[in-house]
């Protein structure tokens, strides 16, 4: 039954821009401070107070717009969105309406359906259009719980009031919950990457609403859409969309009509609930904000910011595959966050061995980081030190097995690879003169075996290798030992 239907999904994502101060006043945007401590007449909406636009907001919004291939309007207009709510101190939200900050964007990203166990079935590249990115101020936070008199009263914390948000509205281009999921992931990663949003969904720095409808496969017209709110984690988003798609299909199959409404996702019950019907929908009475002049963004400013844009994760992922020959999975993992990708490139540059760099970062180092809850840009093993360890492996100074111990020590102690290896006894010995000396001793100490070997008992080579390795306390490079030992044993002219 479900196969006959197609879901049509659009997302509205609110991303908090990572400025130090609010969008229209100088108050701090810090999270978790005492309620109402980061407020002033402007963000409290006191009579007579007026907004002044924070220029850092324009800069960050421009960077976000560029990352999403949006066209930044040279002139955009702030509008007032009017509605009553206790956490909205002015009775209107300063937002943008008919002339938004930027429009007509798109992203092209890998996406895949998932199987029962949640694994990607088959990745493919898809393009999704982005209608607009506009600027607005956040409202305060209503506290309905946790106070001694919460049964009878609600409180409002206005620290969040006036925090800058970029609202990113997609076209209804997603055909499954996983496409929406992958897009949301991509968006979050990109915004974090370019340093405009911290992506912290728990603290509300990134929030998501969705518009969902279903239609019979092949139908041209969209079905009636339902707005879903409260999808504030990736899991919520995916679960709620799945639930809602099923709900709508079941309703249609049962001959019911889908009503246009706003529904709220309840994770505990894994259900969406009607929050308000179309009739109860607000008329926001948008009109241009008379307290703010049009927002002008010059061509020069856009070009300057464009020039300073870092390589975006998707482009970087592809480059990692092409330039370094990494596997798709490794490249994806390494480009998931900018610090890891930067770290990888630094190690690769210094070691000249991309594959080894990827392996060590994604396995041994990742484990250490995870165990200690450390971010890679704070790793006690710097990229330079990891690179010098990789160089030691490649130069056969240490074996891969030893290197694991070396890295663990480096991570624990913060010492350099060289220092750790030296303390461990100088590392793997590949020096031929040194090894020859050990071989000479071993040969001299076992004349009987030498004789037998030379008499044709070739298997005794293993005996000599063992003797040499033992004498070197296992540090001699086995390949070198093998080669030199063979040379030495087969050379009858040495006068043994």
């Amino acid at each position: 039954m479900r196969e006959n239907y197609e879901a049509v999904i659009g997302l509205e994502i609110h991303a908090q821009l990572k400025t130090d101060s609010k969008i229209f006043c100088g108050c701090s945007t810090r999270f978790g401070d005492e309620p109402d401590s980061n407020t002033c007449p402007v963000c409290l909406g006191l009579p007579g107070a007026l907004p002044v636009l924070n220029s850092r907001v324009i800069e960050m919004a421009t960077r976000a717009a560029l990352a999403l291939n949006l066209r930044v309007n040279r002139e955009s207009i702030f509008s007032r969105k009017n509605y009553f709510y206790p956490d909205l101190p002015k009775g209107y939200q300063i937002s943008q309406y008919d002339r938004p900050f930027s429009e007509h964007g798109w992203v092209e990203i890998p996406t895949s359906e998932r199987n029962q166990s949640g694994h990607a079935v088959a990745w493919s590249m898809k393009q999704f259009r982005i209608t607009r990115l506009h600027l607005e101020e956040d409202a305060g936070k209503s506290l309905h719980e946790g106070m001694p008199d919460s049964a009878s009263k609600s409180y409002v914390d206005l620290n969040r009031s006036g925090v800058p948000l970029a609202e990113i509205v997609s076209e209804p281009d997603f055909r499954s919950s996983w496409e929406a999921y992958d897009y949301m992931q991509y968006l979050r990663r990109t915004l974090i990457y370019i340093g405009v949003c911290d992506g912290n969904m728990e603290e509300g720095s990134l929030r998501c609403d969705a518009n969902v409808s279903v239609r019979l496969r092949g139908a041209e017209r969209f079905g009636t859409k339902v707005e879903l709110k409260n999808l504030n984690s990736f899991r919520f988003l995916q679960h709620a969309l799945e639930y809602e798609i099923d709900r709508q299909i079941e309703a249609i199959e049962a001959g019911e009509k889908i009503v246009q409404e706003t529904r709220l996702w309840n994770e505990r019950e894994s259900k969406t609930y009607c929050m308000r019907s179309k009739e109860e929908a607000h008329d926001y009475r948008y009109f241009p904000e008379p307290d703010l002049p049009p927002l002008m963004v010059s061509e020069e400013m856009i070009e300057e910011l464009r020039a300073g844009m870092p390589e975006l994760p998707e482009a970087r992922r592809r480059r990692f595959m092409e330039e370094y020959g990494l596997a798709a999975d490794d490249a994806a993992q390494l480009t998931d966050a900018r610090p890891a990708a930067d770290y990888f490139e630094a190690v690769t540059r210094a070691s000249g061995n991309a594959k080894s760099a990827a392996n060590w970062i994604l396995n041994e180092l990742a484990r250490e980081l995870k165990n200690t809850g450390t971010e890679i840009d704070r790793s006690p093993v710097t990229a330079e030190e990891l690179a010098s360890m990789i160089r030691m492996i490649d130069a056969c100074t240490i074996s891969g097995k030893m290197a694991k111990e070396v890295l663990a020590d480096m991570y624990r102690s913060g010492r350099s690879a060289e220092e750790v290896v030296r303390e461990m006894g100088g590392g793997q010995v590949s020096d031929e003169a040194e090894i020859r000396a050990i071989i000479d001793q071993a040969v001299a100490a076992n004349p009987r075996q030498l004789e037998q070997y030379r008499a044709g008992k070739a298997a005794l080579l293993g005996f000599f290798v063992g003797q040499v390795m033992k004498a070197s306390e296992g540090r001699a490079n086995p390949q070198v030992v093998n080669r030199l030992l063979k040379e030495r044993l087969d050379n009858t002219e040495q006068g043994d």
Partner: protein
Amino acid sequence: MQGCRGAGVQGCRGAGVPQEQGSVESSIISTEIYLELRELSIRTIRERIAARTLSAVELCRAALDRIERLSELNAFITVTADAALARAEQIDRAAASGDPLPPLAGAIIAIKDNMVISGVRTTAGSRILFNYKPPYTATAVERLRQAGAIVVGKTNCDEFAMGSSNENSAYGPVKNPWDAARVPGGSSGGSAVAVAAGMATAALGSDTGGSIRQPASLCGVVGIKPTYGRVSRYGLIAFGSSLDQIGPLANSVEDVARILNSIAGRDSSDSTSSDIETDDYVAALEGDARGLRVGVPRQYYGEGLDPEVRAHIEAAIKKFEEMGAEIVDVGLPHTEYAVPVYYLIATAEASSNLARYDGVRYGFRAEEAPTLKEMYSRTRDQGFGAEVKRRIMLGTYALSAGYYDAYYGKAQKVRSLIESDFRNAFASCDVIATPTSPTPAFRLGEKTDDPLEMYLSDIYTITVNLAGVPGVSLPCGLSSEGLPIGIQLIGRHFDEARLLRAARNLERAIAFNSKPGAVENL
């Protein structure tokens, strides 16, 4: 600190004026037995305080006495006697130690009660803010203080500056000192009366559609609405944000210019304040009217204009001609749409600006509402007066889905036509002369039942706000009933210097020096 701390909704007339407060230096020999504020210009006050022939404290006392004695006019909602006297003492001390005095030193200034002053109750004439004490001070007021002015109190006004008669105040109507049975005009009625009746040297008012000029006209004082963006609106409780502008009222063009010197100019807290350089408006008063081109728009002399008012305006224009100015016919063809356009734009903005008065955070809150929605609606129903509610509804309607284009959108288009009317007119003239108000002061209660009739009393002033240009009203004579009549001069954007020079010349030529007599019998 405040004269009337904790007073309820029912007014607060001159309450709490202390008679003996602190110790004031008494080495000053004042020649007057009775200080008449209307006779003392800002310049004179400063010079005499500096010369130690006048004490700021004495002057402040005189103002406070007068405020108390004329409390029946209901010009003040809150009197800040203690703070005013403390400030006056500071100024006297500075004078005594020979410090240079700031430009407005000792001037007694009344502030319309829709501008916030930190710690001083600010009601905007509304019950919904009956107990509201703001934590910050409006930029214009702060600049006055920096310039040495003494803020004596907060003046009565129409609720949220919505009205033309001052009858829409929750603290009772203000009465006209020329005839206490008449209105002083509005919405800055209290400010106009404070100046006209000698309770303050000057006052700040705000003007959205004529709220400085019309009461100035009806009370026989000078009042200017500067160009939109000339004076910061930060701390002015918003009515129609794209129209509101703060300006001074005083007894002379010179005093008005002097105050404008202190309050005009860019303020980083108001994004709509202009960074165009200000002029020295006092220095600009020098010079005659020869060669000045005075535009006379025929649209302003039609139906509804009181014949006596017309005669006085025409006489004033004649004076310009006698001074060597050139009188030019100009057209402002879209004037007839001004009233509807104004009442759509101003009310639309007001409906949004007044949304914050919801009982949640400050001000009045209706008790015992069962739900949030009920709390909102009861608070706003009981907190706002009839005219405010009428305008909120009108504005809400104008912005509603399906009506926006026909009303607000259309009004904005016509507004730009009105703006270009002025641009075109100013191609052939330097200032435009019109009546300020179609009639002299009308009787209390005369128009309260007919909002449309009331709206028409702003007919000559609202175009100026719609176009954003500056306009000044100054007295040009008395009606046969002994009521003042004002003439309005309109200037180009940010051309207050030339506008005030024209006004100064006319003021000198007319030599209006009548004082409201009625109050002396109160």
